[in-house]
């Protein structure tokens, strides 16, 4: 099938190859993270994004620097795609002082004021109300800024999802709600959790435009996100995107994935890999060559390795950090001398 430039989102060769690089970086970075987790360098929970790269990269490609991103605990990819330095992300995973959150957040809590990455959240759907408020502040102060809020298919069953959609629609707030429907909330298959078979009726219930998107096709994601951003930037209020995707790994590093068959996961990996699909598009359209992909891959591997080395060589937080940054004014439970 011949693919024209118009079918590649109207993006230039350089932009397309940049997207390819970012997707590859996310993949290689997470593979490296998994390796370091196995080596015991990373602790706690770690939720990998592998398989879902087209969603984060396609969506974030439409944002501007001043736009804000809020995410769930599966947010390494969003942080990287918004522009966070891989070294800072990896150092955070290692719990080092050079991490984006000084090693105090970990895998689920990445933040940067500079690039507008306003956190992963460890409580399912808790980032939606916050995104509504972030957008409210932008609207209130007359800033041309949108909040993009990522969450999984499990989050839409929480009350916070419905409360947030209603309020955002009521106040016409510039929020793009992005549901990454990876088809399992932990081990619960989406068809066992939802009484409906898509988010369209749920969006309609709150009077919010909604699109279903193939999340393994980065161009389709990019185009849908672009439409959503145009809609919300024009003052028409929020948009909901249901982006169907698949996580190639378990829910977290300790998930043996008993709830789905090996064959199912194999089939997605072999036939629906978002990077493979994108490479085929680029080759067909003659917008990229195997040599470009190989160069991107080599660069991504080098950056991931360098990030791991940086994290390894960074210091852990000093004991004084234990009591630092709880309150802006350093106040504690007791005023004055007994805890100072």
């Amino acid at each position: 099938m011949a693919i024209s430039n118009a079918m590649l989102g109207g993006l230039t060769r350089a932009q397309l190859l940049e997207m390819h690089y970012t997707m590859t970086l996310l993949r290689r970075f997470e593979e490296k993270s998994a390796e370091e987790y196995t080596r015991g360098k990373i602790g706690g929970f770690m939720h990998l994004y592998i398989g879902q790269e087209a969603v984060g990269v396609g969506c974030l490609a439409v944002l501007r620097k001043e736009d804000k991103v809020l995410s769930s605990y599966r947010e390494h990819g969003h942080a990287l795609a918004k522009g966070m330095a891989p070294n800072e992300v990896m150092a955070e995973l290692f719990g080092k002082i050079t991490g984006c959150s000084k090693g105090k957040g970990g895998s689920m809590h990445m933040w940067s004021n500079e690039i507008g990455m306003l956190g992963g959240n460890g409580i399912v759907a808790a980032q939606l109300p916050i995104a509504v408020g972030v957008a409210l502040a932008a609207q209130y102060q007359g800033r041309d800024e949108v909040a993009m809020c990522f969450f999984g298919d499990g989050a839409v069953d929480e009350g916070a999802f419905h409360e947030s959609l209603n309020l955002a629609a009521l106040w016409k707030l510039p929020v793009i709600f992005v549901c990454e429907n990876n088809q399992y909330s932990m081990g619960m298959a989406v068809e066992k959790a939802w009484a409906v078979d898509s988010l369209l009726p749920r969006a309609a219930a709150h009077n919010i435009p909604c699109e279903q998107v193939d999340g393994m096709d980065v161009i389709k994601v990019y185009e849908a996100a672009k439409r959503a951003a145009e809609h919300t930037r024009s003052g028409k209020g929020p948009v909901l995107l249901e982006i169907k995707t698949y996580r190639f790994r378990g829910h977290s590093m300790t998930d043996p994935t008993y709830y789905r068959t090996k064959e199912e996961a194999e089939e997605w990996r072999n036939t629906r890999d978002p990077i493979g699909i994108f490479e085929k598009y680029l080759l067909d359209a003659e917008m990229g060559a195997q040599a470009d992909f190989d160069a991107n891959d080599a660069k991504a591997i080098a950056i991931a390795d360098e990030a791991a080395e940086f994290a390894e060589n960074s210091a852990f937080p000093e004991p004084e950090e234990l009591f630092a940054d709880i309150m802006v004014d350093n106040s504690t439970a007791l005023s004055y001398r007994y805890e100072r």
Partner: protein
Amino acid sequence: MRTITFRDALREAIREEMRRDERVFIMGEDIVGYGGTYAVTKGLAEEFGEKRVRDTPLAEEVFTGAGIGAALNGLRPIVEIMTINFSLLASDQIINNAAKMRYMFGGQPSVPIVFRMTVGGGAQRGSQHSQMLESLYAHIPGLKVVLPATPYDAKGMLKSAIRDPNPVLFLEHELLYNVKGEVPEEGDEYTVPLDRGEIKREGKHITIISFSRMLHVSLQAAEDLAKEGIEAEVLDLRSVRPIDIDLILDSVKKTNRVVIAEEGWKYYGTGQGLAALIYEHGFDYLDAPIQHVHGADVPMPYSKPLERLAIPRKDDVIKAAQGIVPTALVRS
């Protein structure tokens, strides 16, 4: 100074801070047309418009979380959650986000927000609308939790809370709204700090530590105790997080005896926490065991006679004080 109600003092604080700072806005249930369930916000929408005085749907989790998001992105929200009982629906946002974001994101964000809500019982509102629960939030690092008891403190502390760069829970006892007290003229600038208690009555025989509505009960008890020669010092805690431990210990050093009087439940609450702190840091100053006056350990009953039994009264405070002040001491 003129005399105004606790309610009017709160409204003045909000109005003055909204005039002072464009970033300050208030949102909550029925605060525009209705003027707030306790009429605190009455008239504010007329002056500031519905951009800055916003009615929300009955959706505590989202408007609480949205307040946090707005605070993260440059505003200074006041969120009225009507009552602390309803804040339980939003407690995830308060405890898991507002209290933790600065720390878990390495000191980058700040969450300058005020959550206003009523607390307390005594108006026959039954089990689900009569709780104190201040200790639930005072347990959490990352929050400030204050409970003023007088109109002067209410205005001065609310202004401080709105200017504070941290999340502050501002708890207003339902039975205090009509209490009157002296407050400087509107526009005469003053604030009251969020981390200091105050001695509301000087005394030498015993320290009664209290806060919120129980301060008034304690002051009445002190009047009666004075008639029999017991000079009670009445300490208004004003804040339960942080706790002004220095003020407490200085008073205990003077009186050597303590009654803690609170409306909340006995176990694992503010009173027991205070007692533990006093034993930890001031054991040598004590001449008698700390006495604890508290609410009955039951869900609040509706029926008036039962409700009266569930909420501590003046006589309970008097008895507790009499029990640990020896007659010989009073005569001396």
